[in-house]
């Protein structure tokens, strides 16, 4: 009896050890000559949000290659060093420390997910290395300090856009919200959405939560179904969003579900399938945009990546590297203080995702695009300007 108890105790202990066990990070960087300008990037190249990291990374890589083909900046080529954080908490801090202290990069580009940008930001700030996030939308990211920038809009704006969209386009009065407690992005976006939606006279009839990595959402969705909403706001990342939409349809929920730019990945459709028809999300750009800047970028990206159509993460990844190169040129040096000032002074830089001007809080102000999912494809609906 006693020994059985003890055996089970050890077993339970082992179970916990198993749950906590991680594995070694892999580094794919290379070192090179001294007469280059080193730029670091950290991205979720593998793991749960790999679609974000891959897309953003391809965009950034395209920009770096273009800059180098045109002779580089300040007469030097850019040496691009990138690291994978495997979409895992804690890993971003490790790889960014490595980029700064071992590789001595002059600036850091990344990440897409706000939670992982927030991990790296204090490190960049403490080392006075400018960090430009291509597409983290949570306001807290740039609030970390004056060395942290972003080239996309922020969630208070995105939340407002989606609240107005739900009211005017979806004619929704009662909305349910299902958000991810483990992602600052999700919580922030849910919060800003609610504020605007309630202020405009709407009602939030049910508010449910889950935790990143969950796969069963039926309990939450059953509770939402009982509240009978006109639409369901699901601000989270694509892996969970795909499963949530699918399980919602399985439970007989027919109202539209809609989300933010975290839905932007081809994997969303692979996971969600037909269940996604008639759902919407907001994002930063649409490849269907007819402007020459967008079409030129789309054709260059397709040529380099086997016909893959770039999504918003790729476009912002491209813009983040271009804004950095532009700032290095204007600063005339890679000295961190002068480079920081040059990035902060970015005004009306014409990028793929529109004109980028950084405000006093180091955020960009840009229009949001709403896409619908129709016949298994992302279709442009409308552009909403700030």
């Amino acid at each position, binding site marked *: 009896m006693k020994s059985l108890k003890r055996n089970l105790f050890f077993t339970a202990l082992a179970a916990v050890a198993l749950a906590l066990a991680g594995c070694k990070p892999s580094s794919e960087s290379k070192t090179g000559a001294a007469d280059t300008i080193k730029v670091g990037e950290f991205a979720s190249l*593998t793991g749960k949000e790999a679609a974000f990291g891959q897309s953003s990374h391809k965009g950034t890589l395209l920009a770096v290659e273009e800059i180098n083909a045109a002779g580089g900046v300040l007469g030097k080529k850019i040496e691009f060093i990138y690291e994978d954080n495997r979409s895992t908490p804690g890993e971003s801090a490790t790889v960014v420390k490595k980029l700064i202290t071992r590789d001595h990069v002059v600036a850091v580009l990344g990440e897409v997910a706000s939670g992982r940008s927030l991990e790296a930001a204090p490190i960049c700030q403490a080392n006075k290395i400018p960090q430009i996030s291509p597409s983290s939308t949570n306001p807290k990211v740039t609030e970390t300090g004056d060395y942290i920038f972003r080239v996309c809009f922020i969630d208070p704006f995105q939340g407002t856009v989606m609240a107005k969209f739900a009211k005017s386009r979806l004619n929704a009065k009662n909305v349910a919200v299902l958000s991810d407690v483990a992602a600052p992005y999700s919580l922030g976006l849910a919060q800003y959405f609610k504020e605007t939606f309630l202020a405009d006279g709407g009602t939030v009839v049910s508010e449910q939560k889950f*935790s990143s990595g969950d796969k069963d959402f039926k309990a939450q969705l059953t509770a939402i179904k*009982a509240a009978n909403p006109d639409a369901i706001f699901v601000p989270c990342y694509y892996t969970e969003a795909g499963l949530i939409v699918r399980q919602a349809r399985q439970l007989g929920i027919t109202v539209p579900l809609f989300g933010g730019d975290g839905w932007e990945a081809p*994997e969303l459709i692979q996971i969600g399938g037909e269940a996604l028809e008639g759902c919407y999300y907001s994002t930063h750009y649409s490849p269907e945009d007819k402007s020459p800047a967008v079409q030129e970028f789309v054709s260059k990206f397709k040529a380099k990546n086997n016909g893959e159509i770039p999504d918003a993460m790729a476009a912002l990844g491209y813009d983040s590297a271009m804004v950095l190169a532009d700032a290095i040129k204007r600063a005339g040096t890679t000295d961190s203080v002068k480079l920081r000032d040059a990035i902060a002074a970015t005004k009306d830089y014409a990028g793929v995702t529109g004109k980028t001007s950084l405000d006093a809080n180091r955020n960009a102000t840009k229009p949001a695009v709403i896409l619908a999912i129709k016949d298994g494809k992302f279709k442009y609906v409308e552009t909403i300007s700030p």
Partner: protein
Amino acid sequence: MSEFLQQLINGLSLGAIYALIALGYTMVYGVLRFINFAHSDVFMVGAFVGYYAIEKWHLPANSIGGGLLALAMAMAICAALGVLIERFAYRPLRGRSTLSVLITAIGVSLLLQNVAQNRQIGFGPNPKAFPNLFPYSNFHLGALTVSSNQVIVLIVTLVLLAALYFIVNHTRTGTAMRALSFNPTAASLVGINNDFIISFTFALGSSLAAAGGILYALNYPSIDPLMGTLPGLKAFVAAVLGGIGNLPGAAVGGVVLGLVETLVVACGGSTYRDAVAFGVLILILLVRPSGLLGKAEREKV
């Protein structure tokens, strides 16, 4: 009321999968007295075999025949994997302390996870969308909705549980398994081939894990190399809850755990879902370590 009934259905279908994985844990424990932690990764391999059967080996998706064939393939491949793991990782440690076998099991688990994450020899680290193996439809009973996948999970779990019960209690191999579990030395003295019986146990347990992996992926169609860890640990909790080493206990434990988890979320405690599940483990170890259906075991000191 209909909301409550719907939550019961949700809990039941989640619990059925836990039960299926728990059966594998409990069988190996029943015979060898140790927890095979690599079980949750065999579960993952099972799901991936199902994925490759449809996506790479082009079995027909959305058909009962193709689905059953994929299920059978996954169970066969994982049974072989289970036998290999036992042969090379656990057999050399036969007769050593339980703790060293346990640590080896964790090592095997990490090995499988990391091999699976490798792009060249494994499945790669990114999540993949799992195809629909069986024809899919929703059944509506008043306000309640049951998906065909949920029904399949229940049916497969019941069938496998019955088959397992039959094998263990009514066949010669099953009798040998029970004899081995009772006393290995005496069993070999009466002519039982211990090595064969143990290999057989692993084959059986691993094929159950594969079935669990496929059914889990059917209901939650996003699979990745680390997908086994959490359901595996939950199934371990279920096995302990029902009384480890006890087959009906594992089934009961799985269903109870699935219902508890679903009801916790339904009552608004979604963030405490895993905490409650593991809280159940601590509670049962403190109050009734032999589990709900287990018998208190006496060991000579």
